[in-house]
């Protein structure tokens, strides 16, 4: 058994930090866009139009039942083969966003379905428009209810972004691989990477918890939140 020597790896921590920044912003963009897709598809899935429902079901099920890495390869290798030129970062963002979009659709839909009919009827009785009912009675309380589940999914998305190293996006994992190839200290590099991701997970959880408090200040008595 060899011994762990972190000095060489630690000397190149700058590379890791720039990878970390890349991971954070890619994840952040994918999370914001993914949630909007999730909201749109969740509403589409409970829509009256059969075409909308079918399209959204097809999207969600095809995304949820295939691995992320294959989705990434289809976007990264497949689009250019059809003449659409995209960079690795763009391909990664598209794949991450579409993937999260499908999972958040399911989560948000669960929240929407948990809305009691009487709530909607109460909204109608108060003379709210359809749009207002959808936004204030159905959607916002639904998002509030499923926020913890959404947060976990966001963290999983951040962790999945490590796969982007496979299409040469210079994020945290590929920064680690670069240092590994320079120093041959694989074990040390990956222990350090695990530590970085762990820290990032904790920061993300904290940030989403805070975001939840800011976004949903009313703190309903009923609902998932304790």
């Amino acid at each position, binding site marked *: 058994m060899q011994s762990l020597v972190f000095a060489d790896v630690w000397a190149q921590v700058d590379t890791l930090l720039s990878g970390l920044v890349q991971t954070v912003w890619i994840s952040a963009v994918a999370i914001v866009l993914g949630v909007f897709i999730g909201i749109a598809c969740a509403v589409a899935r409970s829509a009256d139009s059969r075409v909308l429902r079918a399209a959204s079901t097809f999207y969600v099920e095809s995304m949820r039942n295939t691995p*992320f890495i294959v989705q990434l*390869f289809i976007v990264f290798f497949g689009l250019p083969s059809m003449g659409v030129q995209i960079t690795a970062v763009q391909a990664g963002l598209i794949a991450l966003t579409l993937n999260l979009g499908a999972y958040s659709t399911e989560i948000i839909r669960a929240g929407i379905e948990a809305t009691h009919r009487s709530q909607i009827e109460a909204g109608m009785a108060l003379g709210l428009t359809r749009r207002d009912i959808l936004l204030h009675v159905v959607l916002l309380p639904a998002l509030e209810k499923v926020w913890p589940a959404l947060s976990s999914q966001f963290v999983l998305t951040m962790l999945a972004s490590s796969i982007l190293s496979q299409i040469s996006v210079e994020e945290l994992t590929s920064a680690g691989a670069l240092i590994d190839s320079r120093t041959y200290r*694989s074990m040390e590099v990956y222990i350090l990477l695990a530590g970085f991701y762990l820290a990032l997970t904790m920061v993300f959880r904290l940030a989403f918890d805070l975001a939840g408090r800011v976004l949903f200040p009313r703190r309903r008595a009923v609902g998932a939140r304790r």
Partner: protein
Amino acid sequence: MIRSFGPAEFTFLLEAARWTLVLSLCAFVGGGLLGIVVALMRVSRNLVIRSIAAGWINVIQGTPVLIVLFLVFYGLPFFGLRFPPLIAAAAGMTIYASAFLAEIWRGCIEAVPRQQWEAASSLALKPAQRMIYVVLPQAFRLAVPPTVGFMVQIVKNTSVASIIGFVELTRAGTLMNNVTFQPFWVFGSVALLYFVMCWPLSVMSQRLERRLHAGRRS
């Protein structure tokens, strides 16, 4: 000479899909065995044991599967052990699955009503007997739907093993893409094969879930 993607190429992918199934099975069995131990440790009354299990779950769940696999892949040789990629991949996937299964099962164990635990204790069952004869059988019923659902995640995440060089379905797809240059057909077929493996599990999980909650439907 560039090959085009035809039936022979599809058969190559199909054969590689066997290894995805083998790896998934290894991960599920290994992860299940380790997971039940971690889950039981997680509900232990001993603070130290409970904290170790919680730490294990948090560390694995907070690290990408890819990094867990890399740690095992480079870690085994680090300790002077040499294994073929299948063993390294299976070990990595076992570790990954154990954390998630443990967390799922902990929830199921804790969902067994408190009164059941108390009733078992008042019948003078020892803690081990209480767990084996009273709590676990009831927790098992709750655990089936989410466990089947998690099997989908296992099958999908075995694709990450392609990165450490284990030739399963995704790796076979990459190899095939390199000789045919028809990424849409190749990875489309790969995605289809994964879908065929995962979709039945997803549907089964949903059905089981609905059956479990049949009495509670409004």
